[in-house]
Structures are given as C-alpha cells and as structure tokens.
C-alpha cells in the first residue's frame, strides 16, 4: 500500500509553514498529524490536505522534571484543531509559571518549531506549537 503522507513529507510541509494532513474521501474526516489510514473510519482513500491552523486547547501541563536533553520549565499541551483532530505540541507564547486552568478552552493558532535531535532521533525535527489567538 502507498503511504500517502510520510513523516518526512509532513516535516517538509512544516518547514515551509504548511500543516499537512489527510482528508478521507470516504467519511470526510481530517487526520492530523498523518498516519497510514483515516483516524475515524480506517479508510485508505485519502488526499493530502492543508489544515487551516486554528484550534482549541483541551489540556496542558508544565514539565518541571524534564527528560535528558530538555530544559524545563516548558508547556506541553493537546489541542483540538477546527477540522476535528487532536494534536500534541508546545504552548510557546506564555510564561510557564502563568499557565493555569483558564487555558483550557482557549483558541490557539498552530505552528511549528525545531527540536534539536539526539542520539535516538536522527537529527533535528519540527514539532507542533500553539500560540494563544486574539479573542
């Protein structure tokens, strides 16, 4: 089976400021970030689509004891994009010490940032970021 949108292609998209996902021709669900089959119906009839980059923050934490290679504190969060999928990323435009429960439900814009590679990750890569949208 043809892998419609590989991790490398997804990464290239982020590099160019594009948030690439997959739209299912069967059920219309958008899968983001990409995987082999539609996240809703497991359909394989998928087209590459660009998501708009708007979402709602659903939960978060402030990491204060980090894994080796990371410097804390920083915020990890999950957001629901307007197209329906959820995605993990870093909330970046906030002082971590100001992160509190009021963040849940806030509108966010989705972007990306570079994370340095380590022994296990095969070089630098981009991860999703969230910034608080103007209300």
């Amino acid at each position: 089976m043809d892998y419609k949108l590989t991790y490398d292609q997804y990464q290239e998209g982020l590099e160019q400021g594009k948030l690439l996902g997959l739209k299912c021709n069967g059920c219309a669900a958008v899968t983001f970030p990409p995987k082999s089959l539609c996240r809703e119906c497991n359909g394989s009839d998928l087209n590459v689509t660009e998501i708009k980059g708007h979402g709602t923050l659903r939960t978060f934490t402030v990491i204060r004891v980090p894994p080796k290679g990371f410097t804390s504190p920083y915020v990890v969060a999950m957001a629901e994009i307007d197209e329906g999928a959820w995605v993990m990323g870093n909330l970046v435009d906030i002082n971590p010490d100001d992160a509190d429960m009021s963040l849940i439900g806030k509108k966010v814009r989705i972007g990306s940032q570079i994370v340095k590679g380590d022994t296990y990750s095969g070089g630098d890569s981009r991860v999703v970021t969230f910034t608080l949208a103007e209300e």
Partner: protein
Amino acid sequence: MRQVAILGVAMTKFGVSEKTNLEMFAEAGLEAIAQSNLEPKDMEALYFGNCLGDFEEGQMHMAPFAHAELGLPISAPATRFESACATATVAIRHAALLVGAGIYDVVIAGGTERACAMGTPLATKTFAMAHHAQYESRPGLTFPGVFAMAAHMYSDKYGIPLKELKRNMAEVAVKNHYHGSMNPKAHFQKEIDVNTVLDGIMVADPLQLFDCCPFSDGAAAVVVAEAGKAKEFSKKPVYIAGMGQASCGPLYLQKDITRVRSREESVAQAYREAGLGPDDIDVVELHDCFTIAEILALESFGFYEFGKAYDAATKRETYLGGKVAVNPSGGLKAKGHPIGATGAAQVTEIVEQLREESGPRQVEGARVGLVDTLGGDFGTVCNIILRSETS
C-alpha cells in the same frame, strides 16, 4: 480452554538494588519454583519481562540469560515481553493462554527491572520513549506529564476545582503509603500525610513528587500451571477466572484521556470470561503510577461512575476494611514500580491475599481479586481476575 492456576509467587524487595537484573530475577524465579514444589526442569517455557535492560545495563536479549540463571532445560524457550509498565502482566496472560490451550502444562512468567541504575534524567528520557516518538516524545512529553494532562482534563470536565481535586489525589498517596507501611517488600514503608504531598516539588503541573510513583529496582515471578497439575503440587492454588487485554494508539488519537478506553475494554473481557462484575471484587491491585491514575482506574472498572471516584480514598472506601481494598500492597506508589516486574508483583500480592497470607494487610475474607496493569500512555491495559476456588 483448560482451567489455569497460579502456583508459586515471589518478588524481591523493591527499592534501590545493587543486584543485576538477572540476579534479582533469579531470586524471585527460583523462589516461585520452589514454592510450587517443582524444580526448574519442570518448567516448559519462560515468559520474561524486561523493558529497559538495554539502557540500564547495556543488555539486550536478556531472556536466555534469565533462563540460564534459573537452570531451565534447553527445551524450554525463553521469550522477552515488552509492553512498557504492563510487561509482566502481559507475559503472565500469554503464559496462561498457552497453558489453557494445552500447549504447555507449566510455565514460569514474570519480569525484572533496574531503573534506578539510570538516574532520573536518563530514566525520564527512556520512559518517555514509550510515547509516540515522532509526534509526542519530541515536544518533551514525560509520563508524569501525561497523567498531569489527564488531571487537568478531569478537573475541567467534571467541574471539580483543581485545588479540591489535588487534595483528594493526595489522599490516594496517603492511603497507598499507609498500606505500604505494612509491606516489608515495599520500596517505601513509611506513612505520609496530605501535607507531605501538597508540599512536594512540582514534577508536572499539577502533579507533585508524592503524586508520582518512584523509579524502582526489583523482580517478581509466578508459576502458571494447568489446574489439575496445580492441585497435585499445591494445597492452595489460586485460579485464573478471567483475563483481558486491549490496546489504544497515541494520545492524539485517544483525545479524552479522562477515559482509559483500553482498560474499559480489557476489564470487560475479564469480567465476561469470569462471569463476574465489579460488585464481586474483594481486593484490587491497580496501576497507581500517579494518584490521578488510581481514580481513573476505579471508574474504568465500574466501581464508580465517571467523575465520581476522585474522593474514594478521602472517604476511606478504598482502604483495607473499606468497600473494596485497593492496593493493599502499597501499590506502585509505595511498593514501587520496577516496570518490567510490576505486573508479576501485583499478581503475587493478589495470590497471597487469596491464600490469606498477607499478615497485617490481609483483606478479610478475600475470595476474588483483580489485577490491573497499564502500559505506556494508555496504549496497553491487561487485567487478570483471580479467585481462591475453582469455577
């Protein structure tokens, strides 16, 4: 399927150990075989759990060496299982499935882990390798971070102010430390109070140090046998009444992480096979890797409605002598959490409880016990229901 029983069970003391993974496993494994009134040559297979030996000791493919430590015959294959924190329970389930299917009569299963050898930064890093590498590890997610996000979501979803939720979460740690104070094999054997938890350093908001289980070293092993054979060798075999196991993908596909869908499915399988339900369970060893995790598990089992288990420990319903005894061993929180061994230690505790051998932490009249082990970020859950009588 043939009926399957557990014979000998054994665990090392959990904590910080100078022993190697193999030395710890040999101690637990040989004791489990001897307690079964069997010999190593009677074992037909070894289902061996270990997660991070590669990082702890530079040791991959540890199973054949564990086989040699136990003196097993060449005809008994040794196979490594890795299901993150659920590793040993998954190994035991597969041992029981093959015994039930008539492939083997007697199998030894369990696991070993030496997480403390790595130190906290590397241990945190290697544990985080159980997140989806590309999409979820790279933003710097950690295991406390996952359960911290679940706690925030729980507070928001059920309208329980975070401060109130945290105070009730702290009561889970207080309970499990109290139980652990009666367990000579526990990593921590001292009682704490709510302030110990609420004054701790913040690990991942809102989880503080005492909301989190420790990194631990330790091993545990159990002998799984066909029930007829078990009765020949043991006065008190404990029977497997039902088992379940289920899987979920990465967190971004799970979405609402106040609901552990893999556990809801796994425990339903176990209840169905056992012909039992939540009201039949007398004692539980569940996966309290973080205080919020115990609350989520109690709801998944159907002991409480969703959003209602958060004050179970505060109301003392989950203490020894309460509505249902939850984690009488001290749980992962106080007994410790050597991830490759944890499930076998949970089975050990339930088997000893059903044999009425648990001393000061004995659950009076326990007949049916539930083992619950979660691996990764809700990716794997495995449940085993044990009972003291045949069905």
